[in-house]
């Protein structure tokens, strides 16, 4: 009876199944070779080392003898590289190839103005240049980018940059001092958000505008006092005080020089379609396509002013935000590298990825992403009592924090993160010692005595607050265990969406407010590896993570003294003293915990990579090449 219907239905089902199989099998061919078999013949030749790299004069090569720029004040803390060094390439750099990169998040900005977003700087960094940049090999050293050389006046308050001659925008217009002045005044204008592109503001003579109160007139009134065009290829920057850190904030990828002629026409370069339409970029790559939420693709700039660079013909960035998808795409060989030391994976997952790909992919360490700490609201009881804060600093187990919350990938550190006293030195200080050693036991006993002296022999109840991002919740839960076990401090952990967390921390800002939070686990992102970044982030009044506006004359004094000290060793000595004082916790609001580690996941066939000191720079990708 049903016989006539059955075959029809079965045929229908078979067709659907075949369709699905067809789709799956049809795409089952191996992904196209990333190096691009159809690359033009000349693309495979091995060029000489780029001329511009050789001519971009690093500061040490430029007179006067006062030192054009203060060298890195303190060597970066040493932490053994976990990964094996990348094998030596079979030959010199090669041109050609399409590289597929994974972006950990979609870009928010195409214009660096007010930009603080890592996912954004990665996207626009390849399109534009800075005045100076961090060296590709010695990644803490500032070298020229658009600036061929520069000088600093004897008192260190005036920088004069000499631009490369003959640099043009991709629309044919000359890139000159006007572009630099226009770009920098935008970043310096107080009407605009500082973001990371305007971090140099803290050193320069402040830009003044007609009306800042309600932003009704943002016309700059003192342009020449801040950034001045001397001639078409010379620009002068004037600082409020001498500072070696200033040049580093100009060297980060955020401080891009944009086409002044387009900005003056009021063209919104934050919109990718305007960049595509007007085609005025200067960087190693040219934007070809942006599809929000999915990908952006760039092609080699054939007229790039640095001879021979970049090496890749094309970069395709795919926005892969979920960790499982990133792992799957890497294992399937569909991406060649992550385009930053950010991939939404934990340290363990990064290590596992190396294993699962038989080390075809290497997770390169970056050990300066962020300093993690425990924020104490000193406006509220019992944290207004310095004895309680001192006890907490002694009782926290940094080793456990690192092992459990950061998968053992970080390292305990003192307040100035190894840029003053070395991490090795600091590890012997009270509070830093492992809790299962005699020193650690001594720290616990001292912490308990301090609590008793403060009137809390049995501890107290407290609320922890964390933002629902990164490892903050795990970090607070480890801290909670320590404080409960050693000091009897207990209480719930409140988790909030990121912006809500910041809003809550901000409730402690007004002078007459106590704030709605008590303790919080938080990190301070380091843009450059310099103590000034730590002071400005944590230890000065108004600092980003100083939500209670904690302030002491001691720290202010040390900060002022060290910021104008041009001798790196003398500067370091001042900071060593400051760091000891901060760590003693006779008065402090921030319990320094652990320096985290981030990872650049890169295929072994990609050469020319040297991990930067922090996660916030090194995105032009002009020195990378395929060894295939």
């Amino acid at each position: 009876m049903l016989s006539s219907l059955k075959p029809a239905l079965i045929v229908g089902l078979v067709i659907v199944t075949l369709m699905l199989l067809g789709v799956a099998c049809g795409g089952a061919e191996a992904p196209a070779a990333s190096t691009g078999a159809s690359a033009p013949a000349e693309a495979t030749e091995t060029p000489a080392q780029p001329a511009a790299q050789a001519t971009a004069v690093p500061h040490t090569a430029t007179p006067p003898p006062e030192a054009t720029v203060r060298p890195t004040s303190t060597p970066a803390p040493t932490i053994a590289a976990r990964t094996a060094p990348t094998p030596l390439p079979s030959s010199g750099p090669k041109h050609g190839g399409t590289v597929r990169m994974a972006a950990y998040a979609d870009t928010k900005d195409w214009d660096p103005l007010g930009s603080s977003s890592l996912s954004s700087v990665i996207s626009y960094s390849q399109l534009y240049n800075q005045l100076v940049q961090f060296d590709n090999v010695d990644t803490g050293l500032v070298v020229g980018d658009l600036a061929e050389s520069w000088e600093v006046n004897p008192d260190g308050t005036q920088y004069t940059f000499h631009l490369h001659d003959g640099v043009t925008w991709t629309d044919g217009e000359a890139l000159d001092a006007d572009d630099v002045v226009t770009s920098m005044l935008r970043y310096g204008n107080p009407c605009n958000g500082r973001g990371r592109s305007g971090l140099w503001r803290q050193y320069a003579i402040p830009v003044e505008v007609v009306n800042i109160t309600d932003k009704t007139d943002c016309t700059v009134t003192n342009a020449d006092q801040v950034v001045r065009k001397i001639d078409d290829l010379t620009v002068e920057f004037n600082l409020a005080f001498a500072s070696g850190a200033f040049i580093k904030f100009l060297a980060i990828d955020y401080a891009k020089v944009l086409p002044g002629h387009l900005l003056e026409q009021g063209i919104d370069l934050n919109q990718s379609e305007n960049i595509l339409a007007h085609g005025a970029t200067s960087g190693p790559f040219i934007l070809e396509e942006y599809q929000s939420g999915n990908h952006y693709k760039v092609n080699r700039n054939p007229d790039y002013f640095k001879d021979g660079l970049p090496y890749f013909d094309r970069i395709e960035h795919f926005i892969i935000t979920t960790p499982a998808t990133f792992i799957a795409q890497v294992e399937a060989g569909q991406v060649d590298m992550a385009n930053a030391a950010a991939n939404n994976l934990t340290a363990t997952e990064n290590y596992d990825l190396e294993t699962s790909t038989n080390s075809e992919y290497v997770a390169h360490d970056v050990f300066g992403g962020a300093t993690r700490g425990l924020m104490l609201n000193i406006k509220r009881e019992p944290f207004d009592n310095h004895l309680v804060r001192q006890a907490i600093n002694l009782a926290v187990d940094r080793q456990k924090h690192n092992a459990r919350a950061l998968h053992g990938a970080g390292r305990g550190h003192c307040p100035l993160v190894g840029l003053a006293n070395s991490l090795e030195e600091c590890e012997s200080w009270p509070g830093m010692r492992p809790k299962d050693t005699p020193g650690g036991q001594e720290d616990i006993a001292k912490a308990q005595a301090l609590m008793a002296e403060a009137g809390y022999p049995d501890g107290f109840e407290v609320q922890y607050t964390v933002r629902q991002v990164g490892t903050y919740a795990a970090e607070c839960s480890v801290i909670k265990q320590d404080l409960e076990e050693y000091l009897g401090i207990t209480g719930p952990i409140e988790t909030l969406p990121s912006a809500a967390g910041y809003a809550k921390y901000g409730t402690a800002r007004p002078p007459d407010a106590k704030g709605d939070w008590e303790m919080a686990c938080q990190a301070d992102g380091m843009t450059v590896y310099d103590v000034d970044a730590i002071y400005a982030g944590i230890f000065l009044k108004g600092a980003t993570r100083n939500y209670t506006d904690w302030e002491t004359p001691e720290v202010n004094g040390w900060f002022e003294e060290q910021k104008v000290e041009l001798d790196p060793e003398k500067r370091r000595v001042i900071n060593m003293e400051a760091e000891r004082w901060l760590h003693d916790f006779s008065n402090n609001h921030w319990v320094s915990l652990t320096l985290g580690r981030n990872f650049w996941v890169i295929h072994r066939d990609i050469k020319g990579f040297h991990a930067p000191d922090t996660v916030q720079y090194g995105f032009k990708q002009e020195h990378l090449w395929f060894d295939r």
Partner: protein
Amino acid sequence: MRQYAIKRIGLFIPTVLLVTVIVFVVMRLIPGDPALAILSADDAAYTEDELRLLRIELGTDRPLVVQYIDWVSGLVRGDFGTSFWWGGPVMDRLGERIPVTIELAVLGIGLAVVCAVPLGVLSAIKPDSPIDYLSRVFTLVGISIPTFFSGILLTLILIRSFGWLPPLGYADIWEDPWANVKQLMLPALALGFYDMAFIARVTRSSMMEILREDYMRTARAKGLAERLVLSRHGLKNAVLPILTISGWQFGRLFGGTVIIEKIFLIPGVGQLLIDAVYQRDFPTIQAVIVIVALSIVVINLLVDLLYGWLDPRIRYA
């Protein structure tokens, strides 16, 4: 029928207005300040003055009523405002994303219906047969596995068993249809998996009920071929609950796309919504929710009208 349609459409406007009020109020009730989210991206530094100036620029310093009226009057003109996040018109990005999500949802529900209806019918006409048991196991599994998990599971099976994944990127269906199908088929399958199971189950029970009806026996008694009995008298009558469920499921699919688009890197509205939520981009979140709510209301309205057209008992009730 006209009165029925007018009544249904009459309910549409207050529903949409209510949606705008709820969306707007809820967005303001949940903690989090867009200006803070923008300034503190990646733990960056900012000053209180910068925060104040950005609030002025975003307009979040204005009274809520003013903000609401401003937003709704924009909506009426088709202007969803300017994104707090990327600074461009929300409508521009929605224009890019909506077709992608619609395509994914249509493919998902299409796959679900195409596979589920025959499966349900087969299962109903051969109760307690091996195919019925298989179908029942399939529907049980399908209903039990959440969409996000089936997506991850499918990815894992493909990568572990075949070392293959859909190609990266997104190809427009009009520019490269084959690449588009390759990219969307797997997410559509993951998205439609639950619905496939659910519709198959509904089809089976609906069909079994119909098969026992007197008119089916009459149809057979008058000598009609079984194929005609099942398709003209059986399936046509069983389709009413399937239609209702499919309409309702289509709305639910929009929820599923949020996760599936994230897993399979599909640049649709769901992914936009997640990014906007992270960035506290009120205009984008509001626009997406209003559009999704609107589409669900419209689909339900269409299903109601279709239902009334198919079954006279409903429109005269």
